[in-house]
């Protein structure tokens, strides 16, 4: 196994983990506020198609990214409005959003499925950072950098005192209301952030990762991200770990195939999911001892 291959693997893992990270960050914020949005896959795909079509039309990456973020936010507002105003069941509304989002994306995008765009270019690091391993870890396209910046931002936000209001909305919305906070506004903003992140993840897939568009571009990542956030107990550090675990087992199983391991490719393909469950079981002991890691008490409950 030469160093070149290891670098390539590291890059591949980080790229594979990025959409999961972005989705996860959005889910963490909205879940902390007490909202369970199962519409991730729909928002993700709509973000992807929005950025792809915008890219075809304008050729500008920043505008395409904005389009994706906007698409995600619009879709999440379609979700949060009935939830907050009409107290609709969050699980059902989220599922409706997934179906709606996937349908809209397919309708808008399928006529253009055969088109190409230039992929987002990796930003080269200055020459003095010549270590290959460092390059592999740090040299990526702007959206990946953006995901790191947002991750750091979310971490600091969650540690700051301003996040306590958000967390209160998730645990005890009644109390938060009594204390004078506009719970509806906070939950709405948290959800919109989640939508923006999902849209951004979609933009990454369509503009950089593949970069072509097909209606199954999401490949279930929305659902996997939801599961990873549970695994991470809504903590950013753990989310990153989970995304990397998932991403690396995914790549690893392809590598094991390629070098001729005789294990069935199906079992290898199932390994990321098995590993995630196993990791969750191992980690859950800690969860139960630390009250901070428990699920927000009012997650998914309507605040009436």
């Amino acid at each position, binding site marked *: 196994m030469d160093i070149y291959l290891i670098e390539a693997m590291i890059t591949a893992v980080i790229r594979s983990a990025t959409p999961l990270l972005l989705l996860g960050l959005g889910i963490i914020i909205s879940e902390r506020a007490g909202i369970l949005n199962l519409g991730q896959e*729909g928002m993700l795909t709509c973000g992807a198609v929005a950025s792809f079509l915008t890219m075809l039309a304008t050729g500008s990456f920043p505008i395409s990214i904005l389009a994706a973020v906007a698409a995600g936010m619009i879709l999440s507002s*379609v979700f949060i409005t*009935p939830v907050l105003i*009409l*107290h*609709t*069941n969050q*699980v*059902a*509304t989220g*599922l*409706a*959003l*997934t*179906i*709606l*989002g*996937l*349908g*809209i*994306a*397919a*309708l808008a995008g*399928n006529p253009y499925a055969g088109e190409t765009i230039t992929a987002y270019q990796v930003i080269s690091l200055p020459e003095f950072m010549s270590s290959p391993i460092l390059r592999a870890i740090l040299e990526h396209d702007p959206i990946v950098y953006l995901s790191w910046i947002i991750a750091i931002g979310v971490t600091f936000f969650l540690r700051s005192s301003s996040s306590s209001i958000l967390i209160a909305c998730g645990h005890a919305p009644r109390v938060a209301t009594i204390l004078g906070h506009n719970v509806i506004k906070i939950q709405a903003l948290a959800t919109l952030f989640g939508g923006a992140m999902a849209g951004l993840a979609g933009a990454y897939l369509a503009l950089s990762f593949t970069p072509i568009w097909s*209606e199954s571009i999401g490949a*279930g990542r929305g*659902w*996997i991200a*939801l*599961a*990873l956030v*549970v*695994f991470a107990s809504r903590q950013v550090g753990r989310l990153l770990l989970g995304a990397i675990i998932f991403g690396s087992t995914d790549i690893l199983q392809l590598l094991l195939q390629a070098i001729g391991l005789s294990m*069935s490719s*199906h*079992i290898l*393909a*199932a390994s990321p*999911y*098995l590993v*995630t*469950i196993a990791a*969750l*079981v191992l980690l*859950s*002991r800690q*969860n*139960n001892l630390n009250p901070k890691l428990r*699920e927000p008490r009012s997650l998914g409950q309507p605040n*009436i």
Partner: protein
Amino acid sequence: MFIRRRRIAPSLAWQFLSPPLAITLALATGYLFLTLQDLPAQAILLDFLISPLSDFYSLVEIIGKATPLLICALGLSICYRAKIWNIGAEGQFIAGALIGGAVALHLDDWPSWLSLPTICMAGIAAGSSWAGISAWLKVSFKANEVLTTIMLNYISLHLLAWSLSGPLKDPEGFNFPESALFADSVILPSILAEGYLSIGALIALLLTVLLFILNRYSILLFRFQLLGEDESSARFSGLSPKRLTLQAMAISGGLAGLAGIMEIAGPVGQLTMNVNFGFGYAAIIVAFLGRLKPMGMLFASLLMSITYLGAENVQIGFGIPRATTSIFQGALLLYLLATDFFINFEIRIARAQPE
């Protein structure tokens, strides 16, 4: 200023008004959408909703497609009432189809009256066990069921692929990942003289009635409801949340597995990679559309079924792309969830209140 106020009791009128209103709203949206695209909206919508109901053959197909949806939804409703968010109906469906199918392939020399119940039992057991894995993880390690059931869905797909490429592969199938066609003795009989409607439809109906009776006249299922409403009360009355969780998941998984094996040993007649038609996820929608009540879910499953068939019709008749089905289904669900609001709430116009 409009304010929302919770009703004292759920409005009966709105329970009946809500679905037709939602359907109307969805149709109106569809009408607008199609007209904006210069398409013959009226003709299309008629073809979408009315033509599936217009002849006997289509009606049979609707019931046939609704059957697995309904059976899965019945199981899910028990879990959801207990606020156990089982997203794994898909995987449990596949598990039932897989194990039941494997048994069916080996029992083709048994008489039907013996082999069919056996394979159904196998399917139920498989689905039940598959759900049981998530339940055990939840009970022993507090592992969240949303995560485990989703992961198990994917794992079951790979398990299916592995079996079809290996032990269950049709020896005369030119190496394609499919099983041999099931022998006639292990195909569920049809309840119709003409055309095919498997006995699964009848079983679905019976299960619905059973669940309805149990909900209304027995206390057996109330414990699950209690667990969902107020866990401490449940504990206080001597129930064990752990045991209830295991039971709920086992029942739900068993029903999903039954749906799976009946679909495979019925209209499909073979085990292939496409055995899951997204029934597991669609069943979640059916459960919510039906408000977790058996009769409601019965109608919801038929409605969903009509939309699937209607979409196929308009594709043949007008070239409308498949994606529009999803949009219509999603919109319908959203509208229904919105109109259901009025069952439990009312809108009042508030005058300025004296301080």
